[in-house]
């Protein structure tokens, strides 16, 4: 059972820390910092399901986040639905889209699959940029009334923050549960050798479509919450290609295939990025450094930070998953 795994409780502790730290002393700027870290963790963790667990590199993972943001903002603003319901519906809708995309493109392997994911990102962005109900390239703005139903803007932002932390914890729990399940074992088999996996009885086509769809759900929910918090969305910020690539850097840095690795990589990279972006000297170079970092990790520590820890302390595997 999942409750018996020590790492489950570690995840809950991390989430509790995220909630306690900014709440203590009503520290709004810390909250805004942590929200970015949480989004990074959500993106990296769910990307890990594809790259780390299944061995399929998704360059267009951000499409789920952006699409979730659009569906969520449309529902909260135009349809005046409540936030939680809108976010959940956004998650379900985007997951279903992903399942259908998945059945189509998951026949491809390796570099061809990776290229197809870029294609999907571009296609969705082009579609949204020309889609009238979603405001074409100017996007959508949140009506201020949407905050009123949550008891005013101040309260609404805190509520959104708690929800995002919940999605973050859930992302890690989903990763943990899948890792220890029979479904996860099937995914690992696909990652190691898809042909062998099929001959051993794994229904690879279905497994890949399911995990692709699962990896879309929580990022879409997070997108709905995040763009609600920001109050506006347009195609260029919703489908930011750079963020998609940075998600891969986060994952490689922390250690693909590991639950904590994805979270750790997300946290560290986000911290590094905010430092670089705000530093007067290096602000234009943050992608150069990201690229360099990725190169170093791939060359010298293919297992990422957590792979390095596992090598030093092999028994850590049992506790830190």
């Amino acid at each position, binding site marked *: 059972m999942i409750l018996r795994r020590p790492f489950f409780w570690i995840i809950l502790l991390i989430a509790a820390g995220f909630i306690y730290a900014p709440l203590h002393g009503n520290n709004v700027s810390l909250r805004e910092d942590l929200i970015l870290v949480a989004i990074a963790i959500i993106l990296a963790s769910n990307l890990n399901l594809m790259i780390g667990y299944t061995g399929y590199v998704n360059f267009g993972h951000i499409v789920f986040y952006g699409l979730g943001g659009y569906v969520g903002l449309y529902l909260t603003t135009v349809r005046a639905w409540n936030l939680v319901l809108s976010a959940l519906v956004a998650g379900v809708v985007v997951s279903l889209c992903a399942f259908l995309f998945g059945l189509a493109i998951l026949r491809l392997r390796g570099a061809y699959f990776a290229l197809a994911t870029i294609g999907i990102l571009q296609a969705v962005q082009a579609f949204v940029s020309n889609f009238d109900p979603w405001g074409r390239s100017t996007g959508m703005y949140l009506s201020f009334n949407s905050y009123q139903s949550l008891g005013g803007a101040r309260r609404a932002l805190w509520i959104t923050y708690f929800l995002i932390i919940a999605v973050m914890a859930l992302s890690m729990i989903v990763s943990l549960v899948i890792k*220890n*399940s*029979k479904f996860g*074992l*099937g995914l*690992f*088999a696909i990652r*190691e*050798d898809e*042909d*062998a*996996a*099929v*001959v*051993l*009885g*794994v*229904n*690879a086509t279905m497994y890949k479509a399911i995990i692709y769809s699962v990896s879309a759900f929580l990022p879409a929910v997070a997108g709905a919450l995040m763009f609600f918090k920001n109050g506006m969305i347009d195609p260029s910020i919703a489908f930011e290609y750079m963020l998609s690539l940075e998600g891969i850097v986060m994952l490689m840095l922390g250690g693909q295939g590991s639950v904590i690795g994805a979270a750790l990589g997300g946290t560290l990279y986000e911290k590094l990025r905010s430092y670089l972006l705000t530093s007067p000297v290096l602000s234009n170079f943050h992608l150069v450094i990201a690229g360099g970092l990725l190169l170093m990790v791939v060359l010298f520590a293919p297992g990422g930070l957590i792979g390095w820890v596992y090598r030093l302390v092999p028994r850590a595997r049992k506790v830190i998953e």
Partner: protein
Amino acid sequence: MNSLLEVRGVSKHFGGLVAVSDVSFSIAEGEIMGLIGPNGAGKTTLFNVVNGVYKADQGSITFAGEDITGYSPDKVVHLGLARTHQIVKPLNDLTVLENVTVGACFGREYLDKAAARKVASEVLQRVGLGDRADTVARSLTIAGKKRLEVARALAAKPKLLLLDEVLAGLNPTEVATMIELVRTIRDSGVSVLMIEHLMQAIMSLSDRIVVLNLGRKLAEGQPDEVVHNPDVVEAYLGFPDIVDKLTRTD
């Protein structure tokens, strides 16, 4: 006797190349059938057609009374037809135990993970990999990887096991243990269809033998019938009368 596997008129082409052409044979329950033939005769292709990796262009395959022509490999395993690969395909970064657990999880009994793990450790003991359970599969020797192939297939609890050159590349001691293993598999009630180049081994193990040459079935019968069949001798050695010449004592 009931036939477990029934292959009827199966053909498989790759573009202009005829890999398997109109091959028919059947395997009874509890039988060990040998499949031999020169390199490029279509033996592995036939395996791939039987377990669904390739779709047959013509013909039908019936397994345990069910027409499995065109089934995907994962579906074929659930019905109880497992196989090994000539070129071993270990799941490199998983442990030996995990490799075999995959076989048990997704095999005929479709076990949950805990039960599969138990079956996997039993099978590992049986094939002699019990002490390597926790090492990663990539660090096994070639003999170890061949045993791992057999263990994964066995963990699926098959009714019929297809063995693709499990003896190739093994030293004489390893060959002897593997032959012993195949015997115990048959004694446990599993039928076996095996491709093998090692003639002594296949002659002593098989109840019957099918010979393929250039994609066609050349001969079928008891081992000693087959070795003395002039067509078979010609396919292997080029001269139909070479056996006589070599065994002549005067």
